[in-house]
């Protein structure tokens, strides 16, 4: 029952986006995530939609699995949108669209709710394109490589990356272990589905404690295994797969940077001296 949960759902493929360097993908995703907050008008949101669809098409991942990632934040999405609808006041002199008692809804509120909604959705879609096309291993390597400059201030970059990759690799085995413990306690008559909140919370103790104990046991075993194979940290270690930049990274970076330069420029310009492109501000 727990096995249905997926983390870092990598979708195997051989596309343009899959073959791009994980570091570049990570940086471009960050650029995308920042850039999306500089998009102010629906017209530009339209452009972003086209860009995203183009990326998804080039990555050859099914649209369905991309959209699945939104399911996880649907509550957050609706909550933010509703709060925006009710708490955004219109400009001076604007008549509320609808009002009842102290609640007033303005057109501006609807607009900002829609924009926040779109921003969050695109944020999640953008990052899920990254995790769908990049294996967790590559992602950790990318993080390690990008954080290298922090070594100057004695930040343990390699250890950080190691912790990250171990975390990711332990998730499936922990899920399996949880499944097993649940079955074992059920066989001893444990009941997780009835009773009040406190009773149900208490029912999880027999699962959590063996899980924790098992976690420590695994950690110790792994540490011993690494020690016995002469692991001694970052010094003198080389990577099996060396990351190299290719023309794909150049093309991908060019497209994304060009797009968001446009977005930033548009954001910087004031309405007065851009009458010619006023339609872009809707």
């Amino acid at each position: 029952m727990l096995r249905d949960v997926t983390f870092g759902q990598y979708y195997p493929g051989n596309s343009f986006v899959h073959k791009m360097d994980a570091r570049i993908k990570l940086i471009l995703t960050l650029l995308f995530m920042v850039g999306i907050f500089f998009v102010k008008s629906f017209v530009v949101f339209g452009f972003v939609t086209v860009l995203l669809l183009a990326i998804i098409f080039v990555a050859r991942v099914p649209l369905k699995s991309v959209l699945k990632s939104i399911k996880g934040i649907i509550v957050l999405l609706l909550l933010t949108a509703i709060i925006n609808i009710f708490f955004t006041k219109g400009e001076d002199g604007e008549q509320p669209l609808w009002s009842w008692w102290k609640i007033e809804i303005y057109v501006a509120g609807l607009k900002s709710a829609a924009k926040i909604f779109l921003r969050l959705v695109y944020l999640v879609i953008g990052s899920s394109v990254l995790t769908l096309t990049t294996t967790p291993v590559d992602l950790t390597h990318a993080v390690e490589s990008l954080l290298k400059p922090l070594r100057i201030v004695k930040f343990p970059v390699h250890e950080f990356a190691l912790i990250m990759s171990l975390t990711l690799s332990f998730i499936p085995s922990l899920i399996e272990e949880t499944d097993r413990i649940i079955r074992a306690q059920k066989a001893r008559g444990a009941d997780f589905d009835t009773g009040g909140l406190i009773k149900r919370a208490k029912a999880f103790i027999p699962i959590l404690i063996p899980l924790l104990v098992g976690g420590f046991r695994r950690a110790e075993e792994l540490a011993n295994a690494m020690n016995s194979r002469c692991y001694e940290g970052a010094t003198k270690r080389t990577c099996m797969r060396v990351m190299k930049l290719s023309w794909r990274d150049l093309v991908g970076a060019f497209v994304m940077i060009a797009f968001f330069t446009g977005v930033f420029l548009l954001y910087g310009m004031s309405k007065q001296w851009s009458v010619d492109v006023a339609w872009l501000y809707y």
Partner: protein
Amino acid sequence: MSKSAKVTAPAVEVPQNAAIFAQNLNFTYNAKSAFAKRALDNINLTVCNGEFVAIVGHTGSGKTTFVQHLNALIRVQDGYLNVLGHDLSAKKPDLKALRQQVGMVFQYPEYQLFADTVLADVCFGLKNFGVESDKREQMARDALELVGLDFDKVKDKSPFDLSGGEKRRVALAGVLAMKPQILVMDEPTAGLDPRGKLEVLSLVRQLNQRDGVTVLMVSHDMNEVYENADRVLVFREGTLAYDLPPRELFRKEEEIRAMNLEVPAMAAFCNELEKNGFVVPENCRTVEDVCAAVVALKEARNA
């Protein structure tokens, strides 16, 4: 017979004295999806009260899936299954009563220990099944002493401070305390030293012979299976390939090897004797029995 048997009259005639009765039992993982995998394929079998049955088969042969059916950890998808009068094909079998009567010992059961004292851990099942608190301690004492631990010494210890073998015995006691009528065990001796193995096996035999507990034991150790079981079920790709007494089963050396299973040392020895024209008594399976049989054969020849 319990309540649930009365509620739904079994559509199938369950043989008398049957502890477990399965008819046309099928199970598919991820049914109706691209990842569908047939785990059980038309299983028919009867296990009588008081039998000692071993279950063998390769990884993925369906034995674990079958065993989990017996405790309703996996619900019947298709077919009929009756365990101790509980109709498990019914919509709502009485799970509490069933799980109290069918004790299940998982692989590495020591990994399910959680309480702060041994006593509390052994009492966990009893408490869940609604045994009164004044009776629990006595039942826990019986169970811990049954598995060979000194109740007064260990009851207040943390289960995590015990040795590996002791932990396993505490976990076993946690299941045995409920006095199950059927004991299902998934590789109970895995990871134990030879002495620990012998102790667990003799405990299981004792439960089976003295207390009449029906035992189902999944095992990969054919010697263990050969010496202890009354009957061996061989699972292969979800089907029940063989259902025979151990001696008869392991005479089929070729078929056994074809399934990547081992032939037990004593069985191979007896088979060799038989091939050379000696008559070996049917029920000689342990090293001692075989030695005695060889001595008897020698004396018969000398005479």
